[in-house]
């Protein structure tokens, strides 16, 4: 079953677990199961059905934005990583991707 890496800031929703198993054939399906089990994750991960702009999601080493987004396929031994972007600065350019 794919393993999902949870960042510290979201572990309050997974009883402190850093890695959580969830099944599915795509990232979207894995996340659906994840959110069904840990409902608090929903609002922190998604806005309008899309992954929030400041959260990076990777399948193994690939950023899913450059694969197929939530339709990116996953295998049984895939690691899906959720990782908030690390960003800052005096001004904010258009980053709402």
């Amino acid at each position: 079953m794919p393993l999902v890496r949870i960042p510290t800031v979201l572990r309050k929703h997974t009883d402190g677990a850093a890695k959580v198993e969830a099944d599915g054939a795509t990232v979207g399906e894995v996340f659906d199961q994840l959110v069904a089990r840990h409902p608090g994750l929903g609002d922190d991960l998604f806005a309008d059905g899309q992954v929030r702009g400041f959260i990076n999601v990777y399948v193994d080493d690939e950023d899913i934005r450059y694969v197929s987004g939530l339709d990116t396929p996953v295998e049984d031994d895939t690691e899906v990583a959720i990782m908030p972007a690390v960003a800052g600065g005096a001004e904010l350019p258009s980053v709402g991707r």
Partner: protein
Amino acid sequence: MVQQTPSRTATTQPFVLDQATFDLLVERAWSDFPYEVCGLLGVREDGRIVHFAIDNAERSMTFYSMEPKQLLRAMREIEDEGWGLAIYHSHTHTEAYPSATDIRLAAYPEATYLIVTLQDRDHPEIRAFDIVDGEVTEKPLEIRGLSEPT
């Protein structure tokens, strides 16, 4: 500057940086001047610091965003090794204090946020902060000569 109240989860324990890493961060801040630079530090249990230079994907004077793939690799190694996490970036023209954007986008409550400033060209400075739930708590930075950066 906004007055900050201490966060109940923050500590005031000093962040210990060895002189060689301090020098490395200042050198790196100059390396892409006037653009902001950024990276991560892994703090091993013995106090040694492992440096991960990460490209600023924005290459901007006023904004930084760590290149996602480099971020993944560094963050994964730090987490899997069980090292402490520090996140640094540079300010080239302003003081070493988190900006409103820095605070709003701070998503790693477990990290120490380091800001290197070159505002005073002859006296570069680094300051250390916890940023938890939008609250900034400065912590003392202690410079020691204990390790070579890797």
